[in-house]
């Protein structure tokens, strides 16, 4: 069971990452704040059941993701773009193109993708989790996670390329 100090330390350590993960998926500050608060609320009530202290981070992300799925079910908002199969042609974007867009645009572009691709992709980019840890966090097989990351990344890069081409002064 965590003490007061442990709880506060835990919040200090992870609340930003959890919020950013939640915001990347919901694109809503209120929803992201709620999900982050709810995750720590569940931790405060049930965290003592976790036997391995090393897996706290993974537990928090797993819990937040589960709560996010529940939120989606409650709002019946399970819609999104289906991604096309991974093609041999890997998209290419110049590093400078990324600098033309801000974080909100990246989140908006992520929001155009189906949740099954968005969650692994955000964990892939934001967290130093191994593929095995990402798979465990999301409760899907390792191969599936890697496939979703590869396809999702290709799709995101194409969306970024399109977005920067449309911006004035963007790459042509």
């Amino acid at each position, binding site marked *: *069971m*965590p*003490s*007061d100090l442990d*709880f*506060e330390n835990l*919040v*200090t350590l992870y*609340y*930003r990452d959890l*919020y*950013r993960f939640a*915001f*990347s998926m919901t694109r809503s*500050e*209120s929803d992201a*704040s*709620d999900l*982050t*608060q*709810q995750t*720590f*609320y569940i931790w*405060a*009530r049930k965290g003592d059941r976790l036997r391995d202290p090393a897996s706290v981070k993974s537990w928090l992300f797993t819990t937040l993701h589960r*709560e996010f799925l*529940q*939120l989606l079910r*409650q709002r019946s908002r399970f819609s999104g773009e289906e991604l096309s199969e991974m093609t*041999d042609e*890997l998209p290419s*974007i*110049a*590093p400078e193109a*990324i*600098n033309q*867009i*801000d*974080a*909100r645009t*990246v*989140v908006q572009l992520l929001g155009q993708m189906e949740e099954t691709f968005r969650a692994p992709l*955000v964990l*892939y*980019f*934001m967290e*130093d*989790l*191994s*593929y095995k840890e990402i798979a465990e966090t999301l409760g899907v097989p390792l191969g599936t996670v*890697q496939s979703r*990351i*590869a396809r999702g*990344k*290709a799709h*995101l*890069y194409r969306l*970024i390329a399109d977005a920067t081409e449309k911006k004035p002064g963007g790459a042509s």
Partner: protein
Amino acid sequence: MNSRDAKQILWIYRAGTDRDEPQFADALSAMVRDSELRRWVEQQDVVFQAVRRKLSGIDVPRDLREKIVRQRPIEHSTTQWLRPVLQIAAVLLVFASLTTFWLRSHPKNNFAAYEGYVTRLVSGKYHMSYESNDRERIRLFLERNQAPAQYALPPALTRTTALGCATLSWSGNPVSMLCFTDAQQRKLWLFVTSRDSIPDSPRKATPSFEQHAKGFVSASWTANGYTYVLTMQGDAQVLSEYL
């Protein structure tokens, strides 16, 4: 392995994280011999880091940390060393309670005890489990935490501002506590639990009033399978304005 195959494998490779992942070993070896492949991987890493920086730059609300810490459930505010002592005390308390129950055959789970409990609770120090002015978000929070959420608020309560909620327990049954404030900054609390939680719950949908210690007044009624207690500091006349 040719350059094209290596690129397919290294497409998801993260230089800082995946160095020891065996699935990339052969493709990374090919990179040593292929300068064009090496440049491609380096460029991919620059783009990866740029996207990563964007996502890590998402602003986090300034008060979020404090909100999370403040809304921590009460039952976990004990320090580590105190826990075994409290566990023993809890066992003794349960034993004493059971003995008292057995001797007196007088169950404490009655509506008067419940009403007394909720009014004492709000007259002292308590924690809110969730703070929000959004009534639907409050309902969603309660639903997520298996607390009564399909309640019907008295129409006059729409004149107040919601402040948040807490999840409580009475005789092992979940209770939702909703907190409101009116235009005069007076607080009102609404407690909702299943009618079956309390054997002698009010049967009528018409509120009945009760005055309590510290100037608290409560109104209670039952509707749609729920028993409601609305309480505030003041008298029945003021409280009836919100029913």
